[in-house]
Structures are given as C-alpha cells and as structure tokens.
C-alpha cells in the first residue's frame, strides 16, 4: 500500500472516485471454454482486469520427484503478460508472481479432491492480460471456473475477492488508484458454499474492527460472484454462451 494519505479517494457524498458505493464491487464477467486446446478454461473480466486460465490434467506428475504418493500435485503458474500493465513487464523470473503462484496452488490443493488422483498433477495456468488492481483474485476466480470446466471434482469453487481501506474507510474491491494510494488491502479466496477461507493475504494498516468489516464485505461479494460463475458454467453447458 502506498498509504500516502494526501490523495483524495472519496467524493464529498461518500461515494468513490469511479462512482461506486463503498460496498460495491466492480462488474464481473465470466466466459467458459475460451482456450480450445485446454481440458478446461475460463476468461474473467473484473473491472478493467482481464484474466484467462487453462487447466490441464490430471496427468502423470513428472519429474517423479514432485509426485505425491497419496494425492495429486496442484501446479499453478500465475503470470502477468508483458503488456498487462502501464509499464511493460519483462518476461521471466519474478518474485511476486512466484509467491502468488505458491499461495494460489495451496488454496486449490485445499479444495480440489486431490486424494482421488495419487501421483498425478493438475496444471492451472493463469495469465493476466490486463491488470488494474486485484489480479490475484481475478486469477483465482478464473481458475475455479476452469477447473469446473475441466470436470475436476472440488469441494466448492473458490472466489477471489478483496476489500481495503481508503481515507480511513473500509471499502470493497479496490481499484488501481485506491490500491496505489489506499491504506490497506485484504485479498481473500472464499468458498461461499462452505464458508471456508482458502486464501488470504493482507498488507497495510487495519484495526481489528476494520478487519471484521473487510471480511464481511468479502463474504458478501464472494457469494454474488459465485452466482455469476455458476451462471456462466450453466450457459456454457447449455450451449447458450456466445
């Protein structure tokens, strides 16, 4: 969080610079099956963020040393395309992407029924095409839909959502200016069907009360986005999309 404090992020009427209410998410769109050669795939647009995800597998895990004897390995790559941000990103090794890939993989290892596929691997490939704050959450949402499209059994779909703090006010779903100049960010991966949290990071400055408010916003938003994800999957299998 930049936390500069000298940038105005709320209008005088309490609304946000882009006109949203403090508990209002940016619009979310979901499409299923956008990558023909993948076993499952999805496209998610969340505000100005855009992500695609391909799922491959389950397949034999190789090299053998990564195999787990009693479950599948979840192998996630979160990657930002070079043109996804205002300043171009050089392709290649990137500490931020590695960390996000790790915690995203751990989230899905908690919800995919990995014990059904011993010694195998499920590849989740998340590509961020446009980034405007909140891409790790958009990637998680896309991955859940792609896993469902691939027919991988899960205990539920994880929804990526975030709340944060700007001008000492807790708000849902920070956009780029709010992320740059705000005071805190709390991205979470929530399974609305069970109430479990499979992914959580936080940085900035939050009191315990503010944390509770942010968590509440996230749960509400997750339920709403979950409906959009289900609708997209239904539409796809009814042959209704596009």
């Amino acid at each position, binding site marked *: 969080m930049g936390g500069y404090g000298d940038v105005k992020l709320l209008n005088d009427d309490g609304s946000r610079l882009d006109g949203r209410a403090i508990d209002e998410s940016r619009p979310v769109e979901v499409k299923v099956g956008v990558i023909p050669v993948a076993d499952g795939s999805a496209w998610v647009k969340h505000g100005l963020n855009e992500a695609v995800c391909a799922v491959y597998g389950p397949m034999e895990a190789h090299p053998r040393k990564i195999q787990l004897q009693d479950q599948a390995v979840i192998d996630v*790559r979160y990657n930002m395309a*070079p*043109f996804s941000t205002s300043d171009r990103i050089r392709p290649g090794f990137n500490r931020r992407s590695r960390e996000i890939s790790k915690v995203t993989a751990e989230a899905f290892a908690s919800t995919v029924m990995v014990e059904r596929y011993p010694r195998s691997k499920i590849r989740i490939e998340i590509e961020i095409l446009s980034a405007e704050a909140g891409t790790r959450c958009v990637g998680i949402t896309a991955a859940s839909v792609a896993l469902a499209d691939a027919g991988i059994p899960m205990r539920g779909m994880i929804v990526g959502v975030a709340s944060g703090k700007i001008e000492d006010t807790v708000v849902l779903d920070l956009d780029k200016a709010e992320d740059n100049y705000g005071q805190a960010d709390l991205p979470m991966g929530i399974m609305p069907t069970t109430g479990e949290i499979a992914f959580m990071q936080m940085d900035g400055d939050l009191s315990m009360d503010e944390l509770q408010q942010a968590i509440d916003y996230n749960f509400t938003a997750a339920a709403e986005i979950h409906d959009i994800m289900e609708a997209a999957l239904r539409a796809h299998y009814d042959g209704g999309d596009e």
Partner: protein
Amino acid sequence: MAKQVVPQLLRQHLANLADDDERISGRGQWQGRDVVLEVDCLYNADGSAKVVWGDTVVYVGVKFELKEPYSDRPTSGSLMCGADLRPVAHRKYEPGPPSPESIELGRVVDRGIRESGCIDMNALCIVPGESAWMVIIDIHVISDGGNIFDAAGLAAIAALRNATVPASRYDVGEDYKLAVALTPIICTFTRVGGRYVYDADEEEELGGAERLSITLGDNGSMHSMQKGLKGTFTAAELSEILDVCKTRCSELRDLVDSKVE
C-alpha cells in the same frame, strides 16, 4: 519436452487422404480455417490485437518505451519482437526459459515486420543521440491449435496498425497514431501426407513434416522466409507455394484493413 512417437497410423491416414486430395478437416489443399481478428482489445497495451484462428488463439500487445539510441544510429528508434509459448497454450509446453520454438516464432515475425520497412525507424527519434521510441511487440499464444506463425504474424501487424504512441505518458507531447506504411503478412505451408497444404491444424502438424513460412509485403515482394522442422523440399515446390501465398496474403491484408481503419 516429452516427445512421443507420432503414430504411424496418423501418418498413413494423412497420406491416404492426400492421395484423394482431401484433408482431415475436410478443407481443400489451399483452404485456411476461419479467422476472427479483433483490435484494441487489451486495456493497458498501446496497441493490441486478438486472433482466433481455428483452435489457435493469440494476443499481441504493443508497448513503447523511450530509450537512448544506439551510438552508431543516433537518429533511429528500435523494434523488439518476442514470443512466449507459455504452458497455458498447450499441454506440451513446459515452464522455463524461452524454448527454441518460441524464440523462432518471435524472430520470424520480427524479421517479416522489420524487413518490410513498414515502420520508419528514423520517425521514432525524439532527440537525436538522446531519446527515441523502442517499439516492443509481445506475442502471447493462449491456445496452440496449429499454425501459430500465421496467427501471431497477423495479430502482430494488426496490433502495430492499432498502436498509439504514448507521448503524453512520457511527457514528450501528445499521443499520436503510429505510422505503419505497409502490412506484411505471413503464410505458412506444411508438408502433410507428402504434399504441401496451407494452414495446417494441430493433427496435421503432428503427422506432418517440414514447414515453410513466407512473409509478403503489399507489393508482393518477399520479406522473410523460414524453413522449419524435419524435411526437405525442392525449388519447384517452393515456386508452387509462392503462387498460393500471394492470394492468401492479399485476403488477410484485406482483413486487417477492414479492422484498423
């Protein structure tokens, strides 16, 4: 990358089809798949295009950066074109440093654009010896359903023709459209079942042999060629392909023209 034995069965099947002048997809020898081209589709790119070409999907984003010119060409901007065949695009792709396949793809598209002279490098200069634009073309293959060269080449030139020079972001004036004088187009031919076909799909590539990629400019002259994969050809076979190539390139150039203006 794990290499599999290409089933003899597939090769034989493709050969039998070729004998009857047929293809596995039902297409004619020189018939391409449906192509959907979309431009200006990536929010943070300075120029962008998406091509859906059969089961192949490619995004291209163009970005500009201000750089000091090379000392031996003080009034010249520069061009960089790279491709990444990331694991998203096929189960056969693995993570890691750029594979020879992705390097070849980036360099072949690069040469076609660069050698056509479609961008005036001197027009990219802001202050001689001090600053000039570098044009960076990033090819992002999302789904490899065959013939990624042509899909990537098409998306690259369309994204360039869609590009806006972000002068205001760098405090060097107002944004303006990049001038792109020509529209070089790549066409790729693959030996399948013993004869050449245009626009091989995934199965045809798996059971096929060498690949010839040719970039033609607006006036029909050639700007790049590349023979790839195992196999050989004769000068006579090349001549035959070049005739088809002209027609296909014209059609695809018309498609670009219809989208960018």
